[in-house]
């Protein structure tokens, strides 16, 4: 169970296979994965490895991906418009 980090992905973005592949590609600690069926998965066991690099935030439209710091009152990292 992740203690420190949560990641929210907008369902619309998660259903976009190109965006999903991009998320899997940019995250340095393999938090995103595209399953064989093409669905986007968030790998729970890797969440706490998030380096807060914000690369995932650049995928999709502003607000579609957010990283939450659970240890900091769920402060959200998200791309601003």
């Amino acid at each position: 169970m992740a203690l420190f980090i949560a990641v929210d992905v907008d369902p619309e973005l998660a259903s976009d296979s190109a965006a999903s592949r991009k998320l899997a590609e940019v995250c340095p600690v393999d938090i995103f994965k595209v399953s064989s069926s093409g669905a986007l998965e968030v790998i729970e066991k890797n969440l706490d490895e998030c380096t807060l690099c914000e690369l995932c935030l650049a995928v999709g439209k502003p607000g579609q991906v957010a990283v939450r710091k659970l240890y900091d009152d769920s402060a959200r990292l998200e791309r601003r418009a």
Partner: protein
Amino acid sequence: MFERASPAAMSRSTRDRMRWTGGSAGAPASRAPPAAKRPPNASSVPFVKISIPIHTPSTISRMPSTFAMGVSSPLVSAFRQLPLWRPWSKKARPREGPLLRFYEYESKQLLARHGVALPKGSRLARSADEARQIAAGIAGPTVLKSQVLSGGRMKAGGVLFAENADQAAAAAETILRLEINGHKPRGVLVESRQPVAQEYYLGVTWDGIAKRPVMILSDMGGIDVEEVAEKHPDHIAKRHFSTLLPFSEYRAKQLVAQLASGSDVNALVRFVAPLARIFMQYGLTLAEINPLAKLADGSFVALDAHVDMEAEARSQHAALLRELGIGDDETRMARPPTKFELDGAAINAADHRGVAGNVTEFDGTLGLIIGAGGGSLTLFDAVRSHGGDPANYCEIGGNPSVGKVAALTRLILAKPGVKKIAVMMNVVSNTRVDMVARGVIKGVVESGHDPGEKIAIFRIPGSWEQEGFKLLGKYGVEFCDRSVSMYEAAGRAVAKMKRA
């Protein structure tokens, strides 16, 4: 029958150094030190204290006592008997251990490649028959020495003399069966035995204070050089040299001339200069010839040799190690690794990110997750000097993953007797404070404990420290920044342990 080298006859050596006594085994040579040949105007500064120059406890465990001279650190005594070579998982890539110690025969092979003269024969026999053949080739008295990485081989009967090939075979058979301090011999080194006129000590190592290599020569070889330094400082000559400039014959001559004269100077230079080159070329932490003998016929030979290679140099000199027959998977331990240490090594090997799990086990109650090069040694010492009782020594660094730190924390907390852990480093730029904080907190939580209770102190100032401090604050962990010294942080952890 072959002749046993009696400990009494060899009592001059306190470090299992083989010595010859004018060709007659068992006839002790006079211990009157040779007259000092130091020029009268030479400085009589006693042998300078050499600080601990190396980075890991295991390295220190293998330090010859030369290193420890004048070092009163509790760390030195604490680590004396610890492993000299780290274990690694069979499945994982070989881990870089702190130090690779060569057997005597390997050290001598290395020296011989660089023109250092050895006693006639000087070959490893793995069977009695091989020993017979080598001895037959020598065609004279021989000495046979057990090839173990443990001390005490002479006392254990691992050094024997023989007059002919048959005696050599019998001696080899005896030695090959002999286990010394739990170590089976790799083989038997068979060499010619010749009368010795004078013994020297020659060594090169790092001087941590000068931060340069230092060459040490004594005309009282065969005994511990620190004993000579203490009791007969005028029989020691030393000279620093640079890692950038080669150690020239001229400098070698300057060193030797302090203790020798006449043709001996040139003869000794032929050992001094190559030893310095070998030391630099192969990333050694110690290269030592003791005794370096002047034989009765005036020639000089390396009677015994000792070489330790820095672990990080291992991959760089893989070809040499292969040629010497040192396998990638060879572990060279002063004692077998404990399960705890093996588990730590497995954690480290399982994830390439950073270091976490380079563990040495003690039986105390405070688990240590410490790092920052020399800082970890300082921290260990600080804990001990405050009266703390470390359960382990564990270096972390290089930005290990959260999972790796968590696994290590779980391991340390699972060790019986561990009450708390202290997480301390010097100021770090290559390791994120928040990631280490996440790792230890995760490990503590997953072990079923309260981080605020189990983590005695967290002192890692450096990259992303504000983020780390937020995290630590949230879990009620006591932390401090760089305004609190490492010594003080260690004191706080120990005080908390005492209250626990």
